């Protein structure tokens, strides 16, 4: 059902009786051409583009719980394409361009809001690195601007410019960056995919992969066996668990990342801001909550909950950057399971098993990548060739010595 201004008015006047389900809850069919494991943002986006842009049929998305219940429903909603390395920047810029057209594409208001993102720097070394990065962004067709302290003070007068332990020396801004209403991304793609015939199967957990003669045949699920031509894993933090069903070990560790929201406040922060001398980034939602986060807790975990020291570390950094936050109250903290890869960059690739595909290793950058990840994964599934912006995201890059290490910390996932 198309959403339109007229429709909204009509429904309002007739008690909203006309609104139908945003997506169906069909029974599983015996088999599908494409089975996508994981009803998160990436899985739903993949299904949507596979059906809409590549015209594929007989597609199912299998979700062990409720769709959008993973990291797309548990993140700090930031979109940006301020990456440095050749392997990454074109992909994330492509993703940002897809965000820019998302509402019209989906006929669903995911509240894509290009409020801008500002990364602060506090040392000459950081400045040099940001200059290199900003140049890489521009040379890749993205936008970037280097701001001096006065320009930052004008926009964020309440940052600590007076008494800071690590004085702000400038910042790298991407004005096209911003935030998106995260749940709506899952719902919008689900509604779009459903309207193109994709079966979204909730409470359908994959318990096994049926592989014969080196080729995938189907998946065992909590709702029975489902045959499949191609099976595409897209389960973020659960990547290792699903791929273990095919005896595949990954260059990935699962770590918990916490995020936080404050009580609702009248507008404070116009855009997204990132502290360069500690672990803190923050934006303000349309409802008025300050949405912020910092570093991962730092140890392997599937527990979806964090520990107090990380909360304190984030809030210490928050107070160091914005001393006026002292009397704002942290309302809720939550933890998501991140698929931290060995170089901090993702993987979108085929596996050595015919018909089995893998998408993962998003670390905590997965949300902003949702549209491009879906499009590139759909491209790979439909054509068996990588999308031009995702050619570097290969499984064997570590064996070949082709790491894509933005942070330069090496094979230690908890440092990326």
């Amino acid at each position, binding site marked *: 059902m198309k959403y339109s201004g007229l429709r909204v008015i009509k429904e309002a006047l007739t008690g909203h009786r006309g609104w139908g389900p945003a997506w169906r809850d069909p029974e599983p069919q015996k088999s599908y051409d494409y089975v996508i494991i994981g009803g998160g943002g990436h899985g739903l986006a993949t299904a949507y583009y596979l059906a809409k842009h590549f015209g594929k049929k007989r597609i199912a998305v299998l979700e062990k*719980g409720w769709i959008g219940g993973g990291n797309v429903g548990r993140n700090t909603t930031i979109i940006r394409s301020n990456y440095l390395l050749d392997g990454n920047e074109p992909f994330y810029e492509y993703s940002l361009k897809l965000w820019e057209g998302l509402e019209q594409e989906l006929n669903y208001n995911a509240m894509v809001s290009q409020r801008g993102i500002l990364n602060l720097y506090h040392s000459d070394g950081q400045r040099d690195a940001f200059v290199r990065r900003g140049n890489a962004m521009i*040379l890749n067709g993205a936008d970037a601007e280097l701001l001096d302290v006065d320009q930052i003070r004008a926009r964020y007068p309440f940052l600590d410019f007076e008494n800071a332990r690590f004085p702000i020396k400038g910042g790298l801004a991407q004005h096209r960056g911003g935030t998106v*209403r995260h749940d709506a991304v899952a719902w919008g793609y689900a509604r779009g995919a459903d309207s193109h015939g994709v079966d979204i199967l909730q409470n359908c957990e994959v318990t096994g992969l049926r592989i014969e003669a080196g080729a995938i045949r189907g998946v065992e699920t909590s709702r029975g066996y489902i045959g499949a031509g191609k099976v595409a894993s897209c389960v973020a933090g659960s990547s290792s668990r699903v791929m273990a069903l095919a005896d595949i070990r990954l260059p990935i560790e699962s770590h918990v990342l916490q995020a936080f929201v404050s009580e609702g406040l009248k507008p404070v922060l116009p855009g997204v801001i990132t502290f360069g001398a500690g672990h803190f980034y923050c934006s303000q939602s349309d409802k008025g909550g300050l949405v912020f986060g910092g570093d991962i807790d730092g140890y392997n975990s599937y527990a979806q909950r964090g*520990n107090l020291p990380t909360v304190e570390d984030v809030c*210490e950094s928050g107070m160091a950057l914005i001393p006026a936050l002292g009397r704002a109250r942290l309302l809720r903290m939550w933890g998501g399971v991140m698929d931290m890869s060995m170089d901090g960059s993702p993987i979108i690739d085929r596996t050595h098993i015919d018909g089995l595909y893998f998408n993962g290793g998003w670390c905590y950058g997965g949300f902003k990548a949702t549209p491009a990840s879906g499009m590139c994964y759909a491209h790979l599934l439909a054509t068996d060739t990588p999308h031009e912006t995702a050619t570097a995201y290969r499984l064997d890059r570590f064996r070949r010595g082709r790491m894509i290490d933005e942070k330069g910390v090496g094979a230690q996932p908890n440092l990326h």
Partner: protein
Amino acid sequence: MSQKNRLPGGQIDRSQNLDFTFDGKRFTGHPGDTLASALMANGVRLMGRSFKYHRPRGVLTSGSEEPNALVELRSGARQEPNTRATTAELFDGLEARSQNRWPSLTFDAMAVNDRFSNFLTAGFYYKTFMWPAAFWEKLYEPIIRKAAGLGSLSLEEDPDSYDKGYLHCDLLIVGAGPAGLSAALTAGRSGARVILADEDFAMGGRLNAETFAIDDTAGAEWAAAAVAELHGMNNVRLMPRTTVIGGFDHGIYGAVERVSDHLPTPAPGKSRQILWRVYTRRALLCAGAIERPIAFANNDRPGILLAGAMRAYANRWAATPAQKVAVFTNNDDGHRTARDLMAKGVRVAAVIDVRPDAPRIADCELLAGAQVIDTSGRLGLSFVKLRQADGSERIIECGALGVSGGWNPNVHLTCHQRGRPAWNPAISAFVPGTDLPQGQSVAGAAAGAFSTHAALRSGAEQAAAILGDLGIKPDKARLPRAEDAPVNIQPFWHVTEGRGRAWLDQQNDVTVKDVKLAHQENFRSVEHLKRYTTLGMATDQGKTSNMGGLAIMAELAGKSIPGVGTTIFRPPYTPVAMGTLGGRARGAHFHPVRETPSHIWAREQGAVFVEAGNWLRAQWFPRPGETHWRQSVDREVRAVRGSVGVCDVTTLGKIDVQGTDAAAFLNKVYANGFAKLAVGKTRYGLMLREDGIVMDDGTTARLAEDHFVMTTTTANAVPVYRHLEFVRQCLFPDMDVQLISTTEAWAQYAVAGPNARKLLQKIVDPGFDISNEAFPFMACGAVTICGGLRARLFRISFSGELAYEIAVPTRYGDALIRRLMAAGEEFDVTPYGTEALGVMRIEKGHAAGNELNGTTTALNLRMGRMVSKKKDAIGSTLSERAGLNTPDALALVGFLPKLPEEKVTAGGHLMNREGPLDAKHDQGYVTSACYSPILNSHIGIGYLKSGSERMGERLRLVSPLTGQNIEVEVVSAHFVDPEGDRLRA
């Protein structure tokens, strides 16, 4: 204004008056009041506006679960948005303002939203505001943002300070109601180390709000006596005004103590709040229960509150929302409210009980089997409309309505480690599940034991069981007598009849209709319901509203309530000030400051300092007349290259490596060989990560056969030490090698320049020959200076000049820098800072932080040959991977601009002179750049594809970010003295 709704009795001190203002209006209350109770006593029912529709709202509860009565407390920099009037202790001079209304609380222009409520239903935003695309950021969103949010921040720096601390106990008891006090008495009398925490300023929990007797005394008095006894035990720590905000792994609890919030301002030196991390062996949750409302049409008018809260205001705070009230209930507990208020002389118009067989109640009309179908009254309740058992309608006049839908055990903390509550049909509520956090038990109403007797008993029993587990003999005391009324309840969630909206989440304005719409649109999982309608996402996290939403979704889906399940309870239990979680690590004290031995002296010289990690280092030393940093830095560089300069290099990491296998160990951690390094010599070492990427570099000196001193870069001192311990303990556990950091034990100065030796010869004691022959380049050894002070001398050079580093025990560092300056006068010795150091190392093409960026290999640094293939060293194997050894691999080279005055930009990208300027044609980038006063030109070093073969080639250096596009020539990175004659002089 008089306290017209103040009742007799209560736990307030009428001998003292406290003056306060609400929206500028002056009122009076008493010690013991909360802001809410004082306002109620003064006849104020309207206290706030709702989030979305700006509906007038009054107090709903008497505790921290309050959704409606939120105010901006205090003013100026201390303004606290969204403060619950129900927990704010009254103090003299308290200032409070209502929120989210304009121009005033009684007339709020935004209340117009309420007229458009048909449009603003759940999910409305997702369906509209899409046309035209560009309007979202420009028009719609700004309007929405302006309207949204509740209170506002002052945006001034918080003037208060906050502490963080650690506590340890055998047993943490959360909640000091009957169960908690009973448990604390049992554990305290048994000698266990107990902490009893309660969020309230008065311990006793519901005992303070009820009229029950315990033994022969009033409950409140029994509580006071129990607290007094506990106070006398030095093994018990009583913590009122302390909210346990979360339970974390392995028995660690977070608790926030409000030290000064009941005072106008904190006392000098004292903090506003303290975050306690409590290490517990066991924890007992006695957090009681939270009453839940019943949804019916227009159930949100000021004056409609929970029955238990109405009772608490009357009994504890001697306040009533109106002189004539009614009660609407589905259980016996609601009747208590009627009885208690009547006892206080308040007229109770009727008790409306949905149960046809409701028990009689004396002196008050009981309307059994009746339901409230609507209410009326502008800005406050005037009438309630009923449907009676016989089907007739009836209107009752009353100024307040106490509503009771039953009680929910407060299971919040049992779920912080993903535990799920279980449904108990006997009380139609969720109780703690079996998957409690490690070491946690639950007692009293929190466990579903609702009567006072049951609470006292389960508290004592649980405490005794825990003590048994801990091997402490429990004290066996008689259990006091108390009421033991059973729970009689008929599950009832919402009145289906009635045309007006029935509210579930009063702060976020979520109605029964919204839940129905979510169901209709297939947002049926509880998480979808919550996210689509925002039910339970307000500042109260749905403490009074979630159950209603679940029950209605269950109805619609034809499922049981446990079948629908609950959303996840997450910390904190109540919102926590960011300042409290930040503690003292703020402003200049965000991180510790590390000062170098010459810090005080450098400050005297007027040095400009720069952060290097936590270190503060002198960046340059301005001289009178120098107006630009470049003047100072150029002078310092010329001085070093022309005569001699001194620089504090203490910050470089120093690790003492000893043992018979010390050399073999260094051979493992360095890519190049160290086994054959002679005693008394120093060698440059290249340290790789196991993935073949450069981790760090530095010089290591061999002081004896079995004794080395390794230097690391300032930034990597800690990670390198950790890595060395890993190699020692985990990879080569039988190597005889011992490690310890000595970074700060020695004050170390670089003495560099043609006159460096002459200067040092003036302070090194005569017995030591440091001539070029006796002490050549890369020599090292122990010496004494200034008449016998032990020191270490290294002939190493970062600047490329004849240079030494001299180290003395740190306490003599200040004296040594002064001595060097005095002794060096004849050479015009010049102190130089990190900038000049940087310029000189770039002139020499030495790699530093900008070059060692975590992606560079030895090959990139043109040190590929240093990676020995004849031995096993960390990183040597994986450095052989093809992708790290491509023919066009990046190589470190130098760049000279075509015009010397053209700035070379670090971070600029290199492009072929002809051809497009885009990422696809990137040839490399500049890592470091500076102005060289020696070459009288800007210079840079950086990485260039196949750099080694491209000397003399002309390239474009582009930095669109800084608007630069110049021509540069590729040259060797060794701009100055490539043969190294100077440093061997």
